[in-house]
């Protein structure tokens, strides 16, 4: 009797352990690799900064200690400017709060708000790639889908006149989504019906999108009187996504729309039958086929939705910030978004977090470029390294002596060129 109750107690304990401990470990297991990858990426970025600085070499000529010191001060200057550019100057923020001047507080907080502004297109683009990955599709075409989405949003934004903002803005926004969806659907359709690999096709669609928008902006969609410059007319005020504060602060509603879409994607993927189908096709197409799911249909839907999200990324930039379209619209969101999705473990919440991180990085890098004269492209290098380390966790594990995790369910990408069977 006693023994039995003890067993019962033990069982309860065991159960509790079962529930509690693995979860804790699981969260650490999920977070540890991206976190350490980011740390490593930042360290390698620091080495790159020091290694390409003239001052450092001059200091090394004087003495070794001097060289080390200068390296650290160069890295410190660079990363400090990155920090103040992306989060804000702590001293200034504290002073602003103690002065109680609302305007001063706003402008002291502007760097962090600007980081969120930068993160907004990343969220859409990252969600696009993550959704694609969940469906077993590798969408490298985000950049092109973004351009087409932006072009569609711009067109609806300036060509449709006289609508109230409550209708016009969502209309232009969704037009962007539709344009991107079409641009994503084409490679999806080609993959589903002919087996043409989406990696090559989406890249080709990127280049076609660049040419197409260049032609549109210098031809049919050009701004009257621009003298052949590839730039579109300015969109109607009713189509603009509102910004919350006066001009130097660009923080806008789009950020919250992006969060809403992240929630929507999460709900679709994990709470609906349809999302389950999509994920099943992504993780195990063969099993999905035997279960009676249509791989062809899901591939097309997956690519179209992924492209649609990418199109929204372009639309939000036009409607909230630029208000007209020019060719320098994107600073490589397409490739960045792959890193975003992978670092965020292809989960919408992860994508939002990694987008905010990347938005912060890029925002800070802009200031770093001004202050420390370090080309903004260093962010790409850091991102590539983070991506590599996230994709190959074994490197991180050997570097930091982490334990090997248990085998988890992972998305299987189509690795070869498709077709075949």
């Amino acid at each position, binding site marked *: 009797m006693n023994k039995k109750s003890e067993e019962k107690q033990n069982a309860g304990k065991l159960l509790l352990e079962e529930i509690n401990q693995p979860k804790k470990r699981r969260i650490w297991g999920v977070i540890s690799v991206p976190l350490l990858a980011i740390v490593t990426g930042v360290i390698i970025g620091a080495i790159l900064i020091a290694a390409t600085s003239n001052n450092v070499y001059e200091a090394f000529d004087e003495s070794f200690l001097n060289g080390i010191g200068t390296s650290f001060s160069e890295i410190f200057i660079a990363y400090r400017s990155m920090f103040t550019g992306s989060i804000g100057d702590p001293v200034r923020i504290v002073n602003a709060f103690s002065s109680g001047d609302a305007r001063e507080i706003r402008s002291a907080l502007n760097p962090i708000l600007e980081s969120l502004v930068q993160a907004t297109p990343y969220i859409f683009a990252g969600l696009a790639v993550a959704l694609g990955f969940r469906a077993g599709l*590798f969408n490298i075409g985000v950049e092109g889908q973004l351009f087409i989405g932006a072009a569609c949003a711009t067109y609806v934004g300036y060509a449709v006149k006289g609508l109230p903002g409550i209708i016009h803005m969502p209309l232009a926004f969704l037009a962007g989504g539709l344009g991107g969806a079409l641009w994503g659907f084409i490679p999806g359709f080609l993959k589903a019906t002919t087996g043409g690999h989406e990696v090559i096709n989406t890249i080709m*669609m990127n280049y076609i999108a660049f040419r197409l928008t260049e032609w549109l902006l210098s031809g049919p969609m050009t701004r009257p009187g621009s003298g052949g410059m590839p730039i579109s007319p300015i969109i109607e005020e009713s189509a603009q996504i509102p910004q919350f504060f006066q001009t130097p602060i660009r923080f806008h509603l789009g950020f919250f729309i992006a969060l809403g879409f992240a929630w929507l994607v999460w709900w679709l993927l994990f709470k609906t039958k349809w999302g389950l189908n999509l994920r099943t096709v992504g993780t195990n197409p063969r099993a999905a086929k035997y279960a009676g799911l249509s791989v062809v249909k899901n591939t097309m839907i997956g690519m179209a939705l992924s492209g649609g999200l990418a199109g929204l990324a372009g639309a939000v930039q036009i409607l909230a910030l630029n208000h007209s379209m020019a060719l320098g619209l994107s600073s490589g969101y397409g490739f960045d978004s*792959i890193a975003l999705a992978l670092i965020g473990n292809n989960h919408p919440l992860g994508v939002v977090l990694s987008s905010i991180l990347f938005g912060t990085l890029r925002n800070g890098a802009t200031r770093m470029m001004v202050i420390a004269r370090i080309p903004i492209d260093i962010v790409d290098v850091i991102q590539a390294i983070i991506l590599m380390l996230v994709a190959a966790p074994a490197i991180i594990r050997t570097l930091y002596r982490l334990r090997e995790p248990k085998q988890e369910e992972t998305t299987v990408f189509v690795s070869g060129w498709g077709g075949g069977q």
Partner: protein
Amino acid sequence: MSTSTQAIKHKRIYEVSPTRKMVMGIIEILIGLFIFLVFVRTISGDITTRYVMTPGGIDIGVAGDWVLPTRLTLIILGGVTLLIGAFQLIKGFGRATNAMVGLTGMFLIFGFLTWQAGGTSLNLAGMLSSAVLLSVPITLGAFSGVLSERAGVVNIAIEGMMLMGSMVGALIGSITDSAWLGLIGAIVSAVLLALIHALLSIKYRINQVISGTVINIFSAGMTAFISQKFLQANQALNSPPIFPRIPLPGLAHIPVLGPILFNTNLFVYIMFILLIIIQVALFSTRWGLRLRSVGEHPKAADTLGIDVIKTRYMAVILSGIVAGIGGAFFTLGSVGRFDEGMTAGKGFIGLAAMIFGNWTPIGSLGAGFLFGFADAIGSKLSLLGSAIPAQIMGMAAYLITMIVLAGFIGKGHTPAADGEPYVKE
């Protein structure tokens, strides 16, 4: 047992399915009809097209101009295309199906040119000459792909390797004032990236497409970083010497062909030499057989004592060497200056050329020429004052790539273990 399966497999590869036979036939007939309905109908009978058959700035191997009656030429082109299509529908060309589709595609392009240049003149030889040059990076990219994919490693990092190669080539070429050292630098940098790709995809077994993407992002960022930090700040670092045009003795005097193929850039000759080397090495040596067996059935190869891992490393490194040469072409072979993102997707188009070329060097070369020609048309036609905007013409190469992928993927000989990491048991 084993011989009989092999025989069956061989037969399967060369067989063309009935639907494919029909689709290709219909495509060819549509092309023929297009030539008649769009080109022939809109041109009057007395117009002629003058083709200049000597590229500009060449004084050996000069040939006279060709003057063609525009309408008659178009009728002949359309007629032959229709005949090919009809034969394809009724009987089929078997193994030559792809080649015949390619031929009708050429007819379409030639017809288009003749139609566009009706009443004026067009330097056809100049266009072909620039097409050959434009095809160099695409073809080298395709060769690079053939080498690694035949061993079972998908390599979409070719674009990044080329970009890095072009930047390092320009940098080292400028510093040393030697195009040769620049070429070597380009090769070394591409090989280093290839090593990373090999390490990630063979040792760490991460998805090869992602591994390639990592390298592409890294190259794009790194080249832009160094370019802004050094090359743009100091133009002396971005003015490498260019390999001069080398006329081959004797051959350069052949009219038409001489100026296009034998009085041109060093990289064109390298391309042809590599074609022969890779073709022979892959398909006529024991080394090549082993490499291909690793790409087809790594387990079987391993059982026979072939070191799968080592073979794959070697293949990827060779692939890097070829991609490095392709990258060097941009800065040391044609432009003489590094611009950010100057490879503009040529590595990816090279992969499409590899697929179109059935994972063979000779096929890759043919596909490379096709893509190069599509590129050349875009730039030349804008000079002719065509009604079609330059940007739309610039899409041609990318559109053709997509059509090719849609039409030809999976029908050819994809290495069976392409993209699959090998785990030794």
